[in-house]
């Protein structure tokens, strides 16, 4: 007999199955499902500025398997394709299920702990859902909260060497049916701690998959957190990432996002600078090809005085791909002495590639310094001729110029092993990205 379940039936069945576990998140999930039922997916784009340039109808239309059964993945085969480094500690999930084989947490670092749902202590689990507000976000965040079966709760209490980052790795592999996973992360960088976190969403399938992630980050007073995010999905896969960050007094948060492709990939990042003297750097590199669509949606709020924010996003687009950069910096009335700079640059390598870039500043304080800018263009013809005139052939010139363009963002990465991984990822894509 063939299944005649609609998508909604599937979401409801999965939600009920989660609730049967009767864990500490039962009430939260129930509230989230109600919200999802009420708002659904943001398919109506008319008048909806948040989704103006990204049509998620293909995601909403999909019928996904939402299973918790362990993945039938050949770990040895997929291992070499995953981001890794010698001294990284990795907590891995394959198709939504914790993978002991790919995880390398050895408990040797007392300054940082990472727990999964089963072991999370109640005092921490109370904070899940406190930064990503179900009622404020759209249906994706609510659906994740209604459906998440496991989660990673990271707590940083001291200073962790930048050479030893913690990686939260979410891998999807080839499945008989399109599959929905709901990665869920809570990071608490406690007072005066310092750490590096890598959040990787890797899709190894050639078919359809949909990962709908929510990451909540609390950066407490004086704490410093570098949060690197890697999105490497196939040309048929969907990824919606909702990241919500709240920063305390004198804290420092750096987010660097690297998106190397997805049929639709959205990075929805909100940062609330909720303490005076806080600093935040949001950088990103996106490389899109074929019919990829990558959307960086950033909302940054300066709520307190003397805070600084810097944003640098760079895109390289080819084929018929599309990218969206929509970045809003809101400076509230109390946020005097704010310094904010925002820049988005794009390199268009084909006639079919398209970018919608929309940086914006909303300023309600009167003593601030804010700058923004956006650009889209082709490779500089003079630069190409200069290299040709030195005997460098067009292919090599293209490789050198595009790599240099991408490196401006990658060179900000302070963990060398991650920098090396990212450079390798770029190099692997270069045959597709040329002029």
């Amino acid at each position: 007999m063939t299944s005649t379940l609609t998508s909604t039936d599937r979401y409801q069945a999965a939600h009920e199955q989660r609730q049967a576990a009767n864990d500490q998140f039962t009430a939260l999930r129930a509230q989230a499902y109600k919200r999802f039922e009420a708002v659904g997916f943001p398919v109506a784009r008319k008048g909806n500025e948040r989704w103006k340039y990204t049509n998620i109808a293909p995601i909403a239309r999909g019928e996904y398997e939402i299973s918790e059964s362990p993945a039938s993945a050949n770990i040895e085969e997929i291992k070499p394709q995953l981001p890794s480094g010698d001294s990284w500690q990795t907590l891995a999930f394959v198709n939504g299920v914790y993978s002991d084989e790919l995880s390398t947490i050895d408990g040797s670092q007392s300054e940082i702990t990472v727990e999964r749902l089963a072991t999370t202590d109640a005092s921490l689990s109370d904070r899940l859902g406190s930064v990503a507000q179900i009622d404020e976000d759209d249906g994706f965040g609510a659906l994740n909260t209604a459906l998440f079966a496991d989660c990673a709760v990271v707590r940083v209490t001291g200073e962790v060497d930048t050479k030893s980052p913690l990686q939260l790795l979410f891998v999807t592999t080839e499945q008989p049916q399109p599959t929905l996973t709901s990665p869920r992360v809570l990071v608490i960088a406690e007072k005066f701690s310092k750490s590096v976190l890598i959040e990787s969403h890797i899709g190894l399938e050639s078919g359809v998959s949909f990962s709908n992630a929510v990451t909540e980050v609390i950066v407490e007073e004086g704490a410093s957190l570098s949060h690197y995010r890697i999105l490497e999905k196939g040309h048929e896969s969907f990824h919606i990432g909702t990241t919500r960050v709240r920063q305390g007094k004198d804290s420092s948060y750096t987010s660097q996002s690297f998106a190397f492709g997805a049929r639709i990939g959205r990075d929805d990042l909100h940062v609330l600078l909720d303490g005076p003297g806080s600093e935040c750097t949001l950088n990103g590199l996106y490389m899109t090809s074929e019919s990829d669509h990558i959307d960086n949606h950033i909302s940054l709020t300066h709520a307190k005085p003397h805070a600084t924010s810097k944003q640098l996003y760079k895109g390289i687009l080819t084929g018929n791909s599309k990218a969206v950069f929509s970045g809003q910096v809101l400076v509230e009335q109390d946020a005097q002495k704010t310094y904010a700079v925002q820049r988005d640059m794009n390199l268009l390598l084909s006639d079919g590639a398209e970018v919608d870039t929309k940086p914006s500043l909303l300023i309600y304080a009167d003593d601030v310094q804010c700058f923004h800018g956006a650009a889209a263009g082709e490779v500089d013809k003079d630069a190409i001729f200069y290299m040709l005139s030195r005997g460098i052939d067009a292919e090599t010139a293209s490789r050198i110029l595009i790599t240099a363009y991408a490196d401006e963002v990658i060179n900000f990465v302070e963990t060398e092993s991650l920098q090396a991984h990212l450079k390798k990822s770029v190099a692997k894509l270069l045959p597709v990205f040329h002029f």
Partner: protein
Amino acid sequence: MLEVSNLHASVSDTEILKGLSVTVNPGEVHAVMGPNGGGKSTFANILAGRPEYTVDSGTVSYLGEDLIVKTPDVRAKEGIFLAFQYPVELPGVRFWQFMKAAVDAKRKHAGEKELAVREFDDLWKEKAEQVKIAPELISRSVNEGFSGGEKKRAEMLQLAMLEPKLAILDETDSGLDVDALRTVAISVNELRTPERSFIVVTHYQRLLNYLTPDFVHILVDGQIVESGGADLALTVEESGYDRFIKATAS
């Protein structure tokens, strides 16, 4: 080495060169002088193969082969070097990487092995010494943030590294003060050999005070209106280009 015959060339459908002919033999230094808009830079760029310039008719033979059909990178690999009037900044591209790629490309074209890192570094140091430029330049991005003088000296260093058979200097003196001009001119003299030819494109005679040409050509309105020895440049210095322009007009 180079034989240009009745060359007509245009930029975006405007004819700039209107029948230019010149022959350059190995080891000779030719100065091409003329008023602005006369076609000096067009001539230099045509030889290097800049795609915005179109050859309409005439021939250019280099080492006995048709030059026009070759792509700019092949011309460079076969020994043509253009020192740019405005050297291009390449943000994020290190000089090391840029020059290593160029030197290796040329060697590969000649059927030679690529240089080992050590060999390349030694060559760089030797050539930097020769053209009096700080070798530390190698770790910087190509021309980025360089002063006008540094850019031109960096061009000379590239010339030294690539050891061309025919070097074309396009208004290398523009934007340089007297001291910088002298430094550049001295390094060009250093790089002269009995085999290597130079085409020096310049508006002013002052570069030629340090760099004595074998031939001087006056290029006006796309044609060479007069050719002579080094003393022809002095005539220009004294009386300007007016007399040549009038000569064409009449």
